[in-house]
């Protein structure tokens, strides 16, 4: 698989993504700076985490105006696989490739710790490597990961199986319901209607090497590779 990883000023998970895709999963990796106008030839795009533009104005708000954004939108609209992780998820929401928005964590704090996620739908190009209902341990590290959207949008996401990952723990003194940041319905990751764009707050790339952080996140990237290799049609999503 040929994957393009985009670096914005302030991205800091781009190198982790490059390492995982190139050194662990043997993909061809192209790293493009946000000032480029084209992604180049690729099968998938990763919009990595970090603090693009220092999170000024709102997380992801200014990255929306980066020159590369036009080509990311074009690629996504043509059905190309796009995954936004953490700040990447915030950016994809700001540009409208994914619905909703991410606001300050319920606790107001920046939270950096391992969280437990449940795979809510394994019939997607991003999750075939997992069992449905499988519990994953993946680190999160953000201050604005509290997912909000209108009631109608939440209903649509839930009904059409587009809530892909949900926080399930761990329960702590300050997180009695296992929902670390207060996201509506404990949503940790969602997919667009066409099934080719995924956004998630936790960091699968930080759980992809057995030597650091375990390998629970690897399945996301492995699923993408399998889907590209099989050139399988996108998972059908009920309306």
């Amino acid at each position: 698989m040929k994957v393009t990883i985009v670096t914005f000023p302030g991205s800091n998970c781009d190198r982790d993504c490059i390492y995982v895709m190139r050194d662990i999963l043997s993909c061809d990796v192209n790293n493009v700076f946000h000032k480029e106008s084209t992604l180049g030839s690729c099968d998938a795009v990763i919009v990595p985490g970090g603090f693009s533009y220092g999170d000024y104005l709102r997380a992801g708000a200014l990255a929306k105006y980066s020159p590369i954004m036009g080509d990311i939108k074009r690629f996504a609209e043509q059905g190309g696989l796009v995954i936004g992780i953490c700040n990447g998820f915030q950016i994809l929401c700001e540009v409208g490739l994914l619905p909703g928005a991410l606001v300050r964590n319920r606790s107001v704090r920046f939270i950096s710790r391992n969280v437990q996620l449940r795979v809510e739908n394994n019939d997607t190009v991003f999750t075939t490597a997992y069992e449905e209902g499988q519990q994953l341990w993946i680190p999160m590290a953000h201050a604005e990961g509290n997912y909000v959207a209108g009631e109608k949008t939440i209903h649509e996401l839930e009904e059409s199986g587009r809530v892909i990952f949900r926080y399930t723990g761990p329960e702590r003194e300050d997180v009695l319901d296992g929902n670390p940041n207060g996201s509506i319905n404990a949503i940790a990751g969602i997919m667009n209607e066409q099934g080719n764009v995924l956004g998630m707050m936790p960091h699968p790339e930080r759980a992809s090497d057995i030597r650091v952080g375990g390998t629970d996140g690897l399945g996301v990237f492995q699923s993408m590779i399998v889907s590209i290799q099989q050139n399988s049609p996108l998972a059908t999503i009920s309306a």
Partner: protein
Amino acid sequence: MKAKVFVTYRDGVLDPQGQTIFEVLKQHGHDSVRNIRVGKMIEVELDDMDADQAKTMLNDISDKMFANPITETFRVELA
């Protein structure tokens, strides 16, 4: 000319920062304070132009960039 744009969370959107400030005020005995919502004020300096034209432009910029219409509302004030 100058303008100010006020960006605030929509009613119902959790404002943990406002809530935290509110809690601290309460702890300091300010019982008469009923609620706090935190927003942003953005000062814009621009070429002199017709007020309506300026307002239309700032509304457009605010809608696309300054505020996220999903979670925030804005108000434009010309100085």
